C-alpha cells in the first residue's frame, strides 16, 4: 500500500507519523512511502487556484499508480486525504480539470493521473478494513479501560459529502453525519467513548494564524464540550486539527484566561498504547498537551 504522509507529518504532526508507522508494524500492515511526493496543496493553494491544488494531488496519485503500481494510497492527514479525494472527484467529473492536469503533467514530465487508477483511504479505513475490531481485540496488550475519550473528526474527513462516494452506504460504511470509525476502533481497544456532540465541528484550522481570535473561540467550544461530556482525552485523526486544538488551548489560557484541562492524543497513539508500544515510540512526549497525565491512569 502506498503511504502518503504529507508535509505536516514531517513537521508538527511528527508524532502522528511515528505512531501511525508503529501501529502499522504492531499490526503487520505494510506501508511504502510514495517516492518524491509533493504537498497536496493543504487548505491554502485552492484559494490561489483550485486547479493547481488538483494538479498537486494528482501528481502524488500518479506516482503511486504509475511508478509504484499501487492500487491504494493511504493518507493519515485529513487535509491530504480530502484533497486527493477531491482531485479524484474533479478528474472524474470535470473535463476542464482533466485538461488542465494533463497539460501541467505533460510539461512537468510525468504520466497524467487518470481517475480510477488508485483509491485513496484514510488511516482509519486502513486499520478498520485492514485489521478490524475483532482482530484488534485479540492483539490487545494494554486495554484502554477506564479512559474516557471524545472522538474528534473535524471537517475534512466528511465534508463535502460528494467527494466521499463510499460513505453513507449503510451498515459497515462510514457516516458523514455521525462518523464512527475512530469510535469503533477505540472501543475495541477498551476505551469508553463519551457522547460528544462536536465530532465534526470546525476548529478554524484554515485561519489558525490569520484570524486567531475566531479559531480560539471555535477550539474553546470543542474543548468545553469534550469536558462537559466527561472526556479525559480528545482523540484526533488529523495533524491540523490536533495542533489547532493544542495551540488554541494554550492561546485561550494565555489570551482569554480560559483554562481547560482535557488532553489531546492521536488515535494512533492510543491504539499504540493498547497494542503495547512504548509511549516514547509513539511520540507522546512531543505533544503540547501532556498526554502522559491521563495515560498514567491505565499504564
Amino acid at each position, binding site marked *: 500500500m502506498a503511504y502518503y504522509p504529507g508535509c505536516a507529518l514531517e513537521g508538527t504532526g511528527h508524532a502522528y507519523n511515528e505512531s501511525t508507522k508503529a501501529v502499522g508494524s504492531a499490526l503487520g500492515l505494510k506501508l511504502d512511502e510514495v517516492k518524491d511526493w509533493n504537498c497536496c496543496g493543504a487548505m491554502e493553494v485552492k484559494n490561489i487556484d483550485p486547479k493547481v491544488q488538483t494538479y498537486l494531488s494528482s501528481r502524488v496519485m500518479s506516482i503511486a499508480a504509475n511508478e509504484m503500481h499501487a492500487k491504494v494510497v493511504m493518507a493519515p492527514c485529513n487535509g491530504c486525504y480530502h484533497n486527493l479525494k477531491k482531485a479524484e472527484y474533479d478528474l472524474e467529473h470535470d473535463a476542464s480539470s482533466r485538461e488542465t492536469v494533463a497539460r501541467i503533467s505533460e510539461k512537468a514530465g510525468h504520466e497524467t493521473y487518470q481517475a480510477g487508477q488508485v483509491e485513496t483511504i484514510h488511516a482509519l479505513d486502513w486499520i478498520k478494513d485492514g485489521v478490524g475490531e475483532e482482530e484488534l481485540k485479540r492483539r490487545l496488550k494494554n486495554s484502554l479501560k477506564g479512559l474516557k475519550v471524545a472522538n474528534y473528526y473535524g471537517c475534512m474527513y466528511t465534508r463535502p459529502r460528494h467527494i466521499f462516494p463510499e460513505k453513507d452506504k449503510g451498515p459497515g460504511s462510514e457516516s458523514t453525519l455521525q462518523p464512527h470509525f475512530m469510535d469503533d476502533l477505540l472501543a475495541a481497544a477498551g476505551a469508553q467513548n463519551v457522547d460528544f456532540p462536536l465530532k465534526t465541528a470546525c476548529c478554524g484550522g484554515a485561519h489558525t494564524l*490569520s484570524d486567531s481570535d*475566531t479559531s480560539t473561540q471555535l477550539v474553546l467550544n470543542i474543548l468545553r464540550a469534550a469536558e462537559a461530556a466527561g472526556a479525559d482525552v480528545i482523540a484526533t485523526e488529523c495533524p491540523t486539527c490536533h495542533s489547532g486544538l493544542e495551540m488554541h488551548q494554550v492561546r485561550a489560557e494565555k489570551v482569554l484566561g480560559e483554562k481547560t484541562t482535557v488532553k489531546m492524543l492521536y488515535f494512533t497513539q492510543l491504539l499504540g498504547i493498547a497494542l503495547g508500544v512504548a509511549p516514547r515510540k509513539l511520540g507522546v512526549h512531543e505533544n503540547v498537551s501532556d498526554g502522559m497525565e491521563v495515560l498514567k491512569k491505565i499504564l
Partner: protein
Amino acid sequence: MIHEKSLIRPENLKTHDKLVIDGVDVSGHWSTFIQSRVVTDYNEALQDEIAALPGGEHIHRCWQCGSCTNACTVNAVNPDFNPRFWIYLIRMGMESELLRDKDIIWQCVSCNKCTYACPRDVFPEGVMKATAHWLQLKGHTPKSKSTIFDEVFAEQVIATGKIEEGRTIRGFFARTGQPLMQDWLVEMAKRVARRLPFKQGIAMALAAVFRPRTRKWSKARAALTEYVHEQETRQRKALNLE
C-alpha cells in the same frame, strides 16, 4: 422581530425625541421608523463577475433557503456573517450593500458545513472565497491576512514542492508585520521543549535550515508558475481590470 431588526442597518432606524405628525405624537422608542431608500446603483455584472472567479461558478443556482447561514460555523460566532444574504445581494447586483460587509467576508473558514447543507449545489464556501477574492481584485479591501498566508504557502509549494511549516509561519508573520514572539506561541514552544529529547530538538532545527524539497520538481515549478500567471490574466480580464 428582534432578528428582523438586526438585518436593518442602524443608520436607517430613526426615532425622534419629539415629533408630531398630523396631530399624532410619534415621539420616542415606540414609533421607530425604518428610513425608506431607493437603490439606483445596481451593478448588473456583479453575479457574472463572481461567477468568473474560482468557486463562484454555481451562484446562480441559489434559491435562498438559508440552510448555508443556518449551518455556518462563523455565523455562530458572528451573526453578521451571512452567506445567504451576500449571495442574494450579489444576485441582485446590490454592490454597495455588499460592500458594507466587505471586511468580514474573508473570514470563512472553509469548513464546508454550508456545502453539506445546501440543497442546490451552490457550493457557498466557494462563493465566499470568490467574493473575498473579488473584493481584493477590485481594490475594495486590502489583502486579508488569510490571503497573505495562502500566498506565502502557495509560493513555497510551487518553488519547492513541499512545505516546511516553520518557514511558512515566519514568512507569514514577516509579511503581515507581526512579531513572531507572541506570548502564546512562546508558551507553546516552552511546553514542548520541556519534554523533547535534545537530539530531536536538533533534528527539528536542522529541518528548518535545510528546507525539504521534492526531487525532480523544476519542470513542475515552471509549468505551475506559467499556469498561475495565465489564470491571473484571465481573471483580471473577466473583471475588466486595466
